[in-house]
């Protein structure tokens, strides 16, 4: 059945997660374009499953989401090679990722004000800092090594002694020997951020096709002409692929090339609602912990490659619980209210895929944001807007273009594995 709508859009955005919604918001600010956003809520949608950390430095140095994964990878390597467990080395991303993350992070205070004042939505931006809590000398060595890697960010680094940590965060394990704090790493409520972008976009005139599935992409030669959905055909000049973990299938339909984007499962635990027990966000080498705006304590997260599976599994939950109770012993007296799993849109080198695809006209990528979609949604929306309009970009996006996979022999990811 084909119900041709007599309307042609300048842009159709496929995907209403935090990236698609941010693109819709930034592109619609001048209210000069006809934009449609198509979204189907699928189990595992990463924006809704996210922790909502804006851990610009933390994520760039492998804390937060990545920490369990890198921890385990080090142990597996040691087991495989038969070597003694090497001291854990931080997984520090290259400078261009720092720039991407820090620039995005710097946008949130103003964005929060803007969405509140102009659109009446509050995504609960909270200044928390991120503390890396250390239990022993190995943790301290790890922290030292992190700091060695970021000489340019000393003004954002704060060392806390055991006493200072105990005073600042009285519920954290008293055996801790101190903490390394990143002063600029804060948090938001992730699904409120998602809904805030969407509502801002809607008020700016973006048409939202919710609960709508993209079935196929219509092309004329190498040009995208529109999107066939279960709600009818939507004609457009440009299609933006913001389909998260489902981006590979969409790019295949639109360009004939399957993007290297695949789901990376993360399980999360949420406590019952509590009075304020954490001032800041916390990462250890076992897990990260953040108390959210409504009092629930969120604990994450595993890194598993299990396809589109979103089930919760006992061994992984226990691992998170053990890490969390070690850090915040009082949790042992409390209850877990919810568990879930989200699907991060992973890429081989952990970096997003932004911009055009050679050989296809009327198509832009805004996908593959892996662990940092919430954090980097703001700059992604802005970059995509500037790119679409041919404006000068805030930063060079060459490292994030799809073309990198064609030239690179060995991905960063592989190098890390071999190291």
């Amino acid at each position: 059945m084909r119900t041709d709508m007599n309307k042609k859009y300048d842009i159709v955005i496929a995907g209403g997660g935090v990236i698609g919604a941010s693109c819709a918001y930034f592109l619609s600010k001048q209210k000069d374009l006809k934009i449609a956003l198509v979204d189907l809520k699928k189990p595992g949608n990463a924006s809704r499953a996210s922790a909502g950390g804006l851990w610009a430095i933390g994520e760039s140095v492998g804390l937060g989401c990545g920490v369990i994964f890198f921890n385990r990878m080090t142990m597996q390597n040691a087991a495989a090679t038969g070597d003694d467990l090497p001291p854990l080395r931080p997984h520090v991303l290259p400078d261009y990722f720092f720039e991407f993350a820090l620039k995005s992070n710097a946008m949130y205070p103003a964005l929060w004000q803007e969405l509140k004042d102009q659109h009446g939505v509050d995504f609960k931006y909270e200044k928390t800092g991120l503390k890396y809590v250390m239990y022993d000398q190995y943790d301290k060595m790890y922290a030292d090594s992190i700091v060695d890697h970021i000489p340019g960010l000393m003004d954002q680094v704060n060392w806390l002694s055991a006493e200072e940590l105990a005073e600042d965060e009285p519920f954290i394990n008293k055996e801790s020997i101190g903490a390394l704090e990143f002063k600029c790493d804060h948090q938001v409520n992730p699904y409120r951020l998602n809904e805030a972008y969407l509502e801002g976009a809607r008020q700016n005139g973006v048409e939202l096709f919710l609960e709508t599935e993209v079935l196929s992409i219509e092309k004329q030669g190498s040009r995208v002409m529109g999107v066939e959905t279960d709600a009818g055909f939507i004609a457009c000049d440009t299609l933006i692929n913001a389909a998260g973990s489902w981006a590979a299938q969409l790019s295949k339909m639109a360009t004939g090339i399957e993007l290297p984007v695949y789901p990376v499962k993360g399980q999360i635990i949420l406590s019952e609602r509590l009075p304020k027990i954490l001032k800041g966000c916390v990462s250890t080498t076992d897990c990260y912990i953040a108390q959210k705006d409504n009092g629930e304590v969120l604990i994450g997260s595993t890194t598993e490659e299990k396809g589109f599976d979103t089930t919760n599994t006992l061994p992984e939950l226990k691992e998170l619980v053990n890490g969390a109770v070690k850090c915040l012993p009082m949790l042992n007296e409390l209850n877990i209210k919810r568990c879930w799993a989200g699907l991060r849109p992973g890429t081989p080198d952990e970096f997003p895929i932004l911009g055009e695809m050679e050989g296809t006209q009327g198509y832009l990528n805004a996908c593959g944001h892996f662990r940092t979609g919430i954090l980097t949604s703001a700059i992604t929306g802005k970059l995509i807007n500037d790119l679409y309009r041919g404006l000068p970009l805030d930063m060079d996006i060459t490292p994030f273009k799809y073309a990198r996979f064609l030239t690179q022999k060995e991905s960063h990811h592989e190098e890390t594995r071999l190291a």
Partner: protein
Amino acid sequence: MQSSTPVIIVGAGTAGMSAAVELAQAGIYSIVLDEAPKIGGAVFRGPYREAIELPHLDSKLRKKISNIRQQYHDHQTFIELRLNTRVLGPAGQHSLLIRHKEDVSELSYEQLIIATGCHERSVPFDGWQMPGVMLLGGVQLQLKSGLVRPGQRMAVVGTGPLLPLVACQLHKAGVNVLGVYEAGKLSDFAKEGRALLNRPVLALEGMGMLSYLTANSIPMHYGQGIVSVSGDENINKAHFAKYTDDWYPIDGTGTSLELDCLAVGYGFVSRNQLSQLFQLEHDICPTSGLKPQVNVWQQSSQDNIYIAGDSVGILGGEGAMVEGRLAALSIAQNRKILTPEIVNKHAGTYFTLLHKVKRFRAGFDRIGRRREGLLSLLKPNTIVCRCENVPRSAIDDVIGQGVKDITSLKMRTRVGMGDCQGKTCNSYCQDRLGYELKSTDIGHIKPRFPLDPIPFSALFDGVQ
């Protein structure tokens, strides 16, 4: 498929116990899990503490309570009961995660029967959260299991066959029952006479209850319903009115009663959180909420998971008994313990009875079909989701913003994100959004794992 592993049954109510007994009769072992300390489910669990006499419960109910216990007793070699045990959700493939006290463990199954029953449909109105406003099933549990009187001066309001029954039980328990308010019109009942005669005994029992009410001067008001309640700390007044055909209260027809407790019952919802977590196929059912799809043998879209009783659509005790037995027969046949001939012979009478029960029930479902007027009983500041304190006005706002699905409604307002996982507010939210969008295709609030809170200590391996 020859197998000696026990069938796992979730729920020791009528459906679950009937299944266990039927399996036992075929020589098949089962493990029956239930969150309560006694078998029988909400309807036939009986008192938590033993009492010598239960004069407020009719003899038939007492007999059924003892029957179900006797049946278990007669077959207990084949039935392992695990009471005070809660099912938290699936654990990987073919296992359940269960909790008994502080122990969280996995229980694997080859075949699973979900017989989780139903929970009450909460219909919010101005004042519904006030102490003293109770749902009908809760009132019954106080009478039957708790052996306490919920109030001194009470009224019963809502729709369905449970209204006169609860009114009689309350009266026998010594409560001053001031009136019964049934939203369905008397003419609706007359129209459904044929349907209700599918179960003549039940229809007669109903007539008996109505004459009991008349004999004891308890007025039965048809075509009337709740408007609001008022009071200070506790309810002290309830306000009723005549309803239009769409159940909007009619101005100028209001009456009020002074009372200290109100029983409210606008129906039940299938307790389908577990079947949803298994990602079984479900249909939207206007009466029972989301309803798992099953074939005539109660087999779900995953062929080793069966669903029986009110959790697969509200039919009451007889339906639950039959469905439990049909599920058991199908498993016995699949395990090649009973031949198709024997199974079909046994099942024949069950199918006939189930058919009659469904036609009987359909009569009440047509009378008690919820109408849009119920959505008008909330003020802007009336709380819809009490876990997260979300008022109606917050829902009005996001509907104004063009929300098209229940998940977005949840994300924007936090309805359904609390401890109860939306069991209380989901009904209103679903009805409201469906009404505004003139569509039932709005998704549903998905339950999350675990279905019940888990203490961190139950998963913590370390020593503190």
